């Protein structure tokens, strides 16, 4: 597997796959897989190196198409992106801790994926619509969803906790890949309405194996829908590595459906912003869907329920730590004089305030009313629900002191 080496590469065009993977034995097949990945060394759009240096278009013509999409980014904007990532990581860390303290039943950490989420999230317009999976805490932050609202479902007090239409940010979807079809249908509606907004469907590398994702690609392509498929390839679907999901780089799959696919350095917030803006512009112009594969890494567990030390090597995790999206931008901000230590200290204090608020809000979340079991099952009512609600209310009232 060439995960580390490909991610670290400077952008260049794919040399294409020359070798056929047709070995009979399992061993040969495995070798062929590795070779296939290596041969197809993908284009990886990168604007900021892991050391925090801006990649120059003159040295890397491949990024010429995307670099103009962040030409307007000011020093202040860069600090804003940095703040978004720091605050999101702090929120995520608090949630992980709260799960360990028994305040949340489960948590799906985004640690390591801040750049992919903030970069793409900040590319959006207010009238765009987002369909997340269950790990898009950074995108939610960009959409203006109060982060504490994300915790209700993980605490077990609701299945959502926000009105999707307020921020054009749909509820988290747990069944893998389902939301890519909802996004595509929504985008079909946007096109019917003649609107120039766009839709983004977030999903992971594991979801790319689901039939729904393939069907979403098909529908989006044939109806030329304004949808951006934003896959965060974080290398692991719980314990299954990408070799168990695909034989060719994911972004190349788009070509077979008839729309472009781009692989972007998912730990480079600037590149993610540029590529997503590019894809959104295509959608707005009526040029149809795009697949963006943000090549990134999940630093933590899939959720607080699994133990990554059982399925992946420490060296791999360490290699990715060197590409940390936050450290990368911090190095850039320091090197260019865009921010100083006082700024970072100030931000640290601000994130501490967020952490405190998250802790307080979660611990004070009321359990839902018991009768909420029967609420909103149907919009127009249902005789059986009415009957069971009445029976349950009578049962509760039968206890001494019951209502």
């Amino acid at each position, binding site marked *: 597997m060439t995960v580390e080496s490909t991610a670290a590469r400077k952008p260049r065009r794919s040399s294409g796959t020359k070798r056929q993977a047709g070995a009979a034995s399992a061993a040969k097949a495995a070798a062929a897989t590795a070779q296939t990945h290596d041969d197809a060394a993908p284009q990886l759009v990168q604007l900021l190196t892991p050391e925090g240096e801006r990649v120059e278009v003159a040295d890397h013509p491949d990024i010429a198409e995307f670099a103009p999409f962040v030409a307007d980014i000011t020093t202040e904007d860069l600090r804003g992106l940095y703040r978004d990532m720091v605050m999101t990581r702090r929120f995520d860390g608090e949630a992980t801790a709260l799960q360990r303290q028994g305040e949340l039943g489960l948590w799906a950490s985004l640690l390591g994926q801040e750049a992919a989420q903030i970069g793409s999230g900040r590319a959006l317009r207010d009238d765009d619509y987002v*369909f997340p999976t269950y790990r898009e805490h950074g995108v939610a932050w960009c959409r203006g969803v109060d982060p504490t609202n994300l915790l209700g479902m993980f605490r077990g007090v*609701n*299945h*959502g906790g926000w*009105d*999707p*239409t307020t921020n054009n940010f*749909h*509820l988290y*979807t747990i*069944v893998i890949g*389902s939301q*890519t*079809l*909802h*996004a*595509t*249908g*929504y*985008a*079909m*509606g*946007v096109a*019917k*309405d003649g609107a120039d907004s766009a839709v983004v469907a977030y999903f992971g590398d594991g979801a790319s194996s689901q*039939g*729904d994702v393939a*069907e*979403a690609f*098909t*529908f989006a392509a*044939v109806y030329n829908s304004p949808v951006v498929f934003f896959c965060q390839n974080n290398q692991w679907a719980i314990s299954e590595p990408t070799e168990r999901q695909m034989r060719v780089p994911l972004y190349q799959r788009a070509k077979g459906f008839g729309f472009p696919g781009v692989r972007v350095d998912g730990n480079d917030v600037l590149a993610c912003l540029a590529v997503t803006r590019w894809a959104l512009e295509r959608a707005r112009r009526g040029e149809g869907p795009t697949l963006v594969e943000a090549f990134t890494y999940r630093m933590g567990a899939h959720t607080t329920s699994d133990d990554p030390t059982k399925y992946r090597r420490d060296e791999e995790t360490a290699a990715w730590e060197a590409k940390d999206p936050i450290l990368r931008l911090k190095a850039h901000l320091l090197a260019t004089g865009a921010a100083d230590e006082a700024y970072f200290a100030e931000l640290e204090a601000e994130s501490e305030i967020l952490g405190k608020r998250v802790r307080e809000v979660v611990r004070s979340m009321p359990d839902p009313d018991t009768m909420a079991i029967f*609420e*909103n*099952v*149907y*919009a*127009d009512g*249902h*005789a*059986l*629900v009415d009957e069971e609600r009445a029976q349950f209310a009578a049962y509760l009232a039968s206890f001494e002191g019951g209502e």
Partner: protein
Amino acid sequence: MAVQKLTIAKALNDSLRKALETDPKVLIMGEDVGKLGGVFRITDGLQKDFGEERVIDTPLAESGIVGTAIGLALRGYRPVVEIQFDGFVFPAYDQIVTQLAKMHARSLGTIKMPVVIRIPYAGGIGAVEHHSESPETLFAHVPGLKVVSPSNASDAYWMLQQAILSDDPVIFFEPKRRYWDKGEVDFEAIPDSLHGSRVARAGTDLTLAAYGPMVKVCLEAAAAAAEEGKSVEVVDLRSMSPIDFDGLQASVERTRRLVVVHEAPVFLGVGSEIAARITERCFYHLEAPVLRVGGYHAPYPPARLEDEYLPGLDRVLDAVDRSLAY
């Protein structure tokens, strides 16, 4: 003309046309629903008159059809999707059960899902595998879904209107072997409630309860029983979720005997739920246990055997005799 005699197929077509005319947000989606007008021609002529943006031919992907319909509903549209045959609904079952059915509840009521899924269902047309099944229980069991089936042209017209107007997802099972049965449709009528049952034939000795394709069989059985001096009431349930237990209870309290008839397998079927509930509600009225007539716990058989598999006149009358013998 306010009243016309139509086939069920034409009544459904007229109903879809009316919905498309009335509300610009209504969309028809499915495989072959456009130029072909559907394999049963239920959508015949609709694309010609309303265009490809309203009557949408889709890729052959059932999960995609329902999944994108959910997205369109989120955008404010009211999709009416056609699943070509009963046995083909299962690729879409995940989207229907895990997404469509739950969206309203999990959004605490902020999201409405006005999606109708039309499914030509059940047997009796000599079809090949996967074209004759009765999966209604699998949908009726899911909270958040409503499940109905018309048995005549008037209900076909009006129940489809009501399903499209509903803000809840409705699984609309069309009895495909009755598509060509004719009946009167009053286009200016005030329709019955979508989920109320209807006494299709009054009687005093026993109640036969059925829905969709089995209503006709039960009416024929009641007519045959009448020749033997037995007065059999037939209740057309019309809705499997919710089930009109009040209406059914009233009938059973009059007749004191109940036989439930459906094509789906008897085991854990709609009839099982009815037997349990009516026994709870009518224990002191019943003169006999509630009996069930239906399909067997076996895959739907090859067409040459379906007459043996499907409840027919004799099997229904046999159950009537067994009930009356208590």
